[in-house]
């Protein structure tokens, strides 16, 4: 039987080739970053962006010595790296997808390289800085 093949008269046959996406890598980082952002960022912003600059809590809590001391331990440096870099992987993932939401469909590959490249660059940047600070 060979009816004219319209969409409504079909025998179901699907033999598509399926291509695996590499999104899980980015989604994993996105999820971890998002989790961290959800739990920590509000308080971080409150402390570093408002309470300290406005003098609502004592500045000494975030003075050079204290931060330097913290950053120079290996675990302190590690924590700082995570606190600063991980949210970036979260946010750039979102920004990458938002470009699509806004209808910017051209050059998705380049958009991807730029977005995740940026997150990578910032991570490396912070990492090397911290390497210099850490006194092992």
């Amino acid at each position, binding site marked *: 039987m060979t009816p004219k093949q319209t969409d409504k008269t079909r025998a179901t046959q699907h033999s598509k080739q399926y291509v695996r996406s590499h999104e899980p890598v980015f989604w994993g980082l996105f999820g971890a970053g*998002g*989790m961290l*952002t*959800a*739990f*920590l*960022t*509000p*308080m*971080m*912003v*409150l*402390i*570093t*962006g*408002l309470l*300290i*600059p*406005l003098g609502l*809590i004592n*500045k000494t*809590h*975030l*003075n*050079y*010595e204290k*931060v*330097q001391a913290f*950053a120079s331990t290996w675990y302190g440096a590690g924590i*700082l790296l995570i*606190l*600063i*870099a991980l*949210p*970036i992987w*979260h*946010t*750039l993932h*979102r*920004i990458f*997808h*938002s470009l699509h*939401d*806004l*209808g910017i469909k051209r050059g998705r590959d380049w958009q991807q390289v730029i977005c995740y490249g940026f997150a990578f660059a*910032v991570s490396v*940047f*912070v990492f090397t*800085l*911290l390497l*210099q*600070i850490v006194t092992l």
Partner: protein
Amino acid sequence: MSKRKPYQREVQSTWWLKSKFYTFYMIREGSSIFITLYSLILAWGILRLSQGEAAFDAWLSVLQHPVFILFHLITLILALYHSITWFSLAPKAVDLYIKGKPLADKVIITGHYIGFIVISLLCLVIVML
């Protein structure tokens, strides 16, 4: 001959302004711009930290500028909004069953909020020490 002529409506790039739900979604996604900038400010702080005390103090005092204060205020609100949406969607990614019954959404959400408050207070305490 077929007289069909299906009409395809185009999605405009302003689609997200057409319904509140979508607008809030875009705000949620848009929060990432501010949080990105915030991370950059912190990265910049680390740069200054590596350059010595004077540089770091200069960074700290820049943060007192009204523009930065305003920026951080907005970022705080957006970050909180991110947290709220994150927590409210959390149950969807949870696949836990207790005695054959799925864990209630309410339990998961409340758990997240309690965690949030505890962690926030802990941060404050650590900084204050």
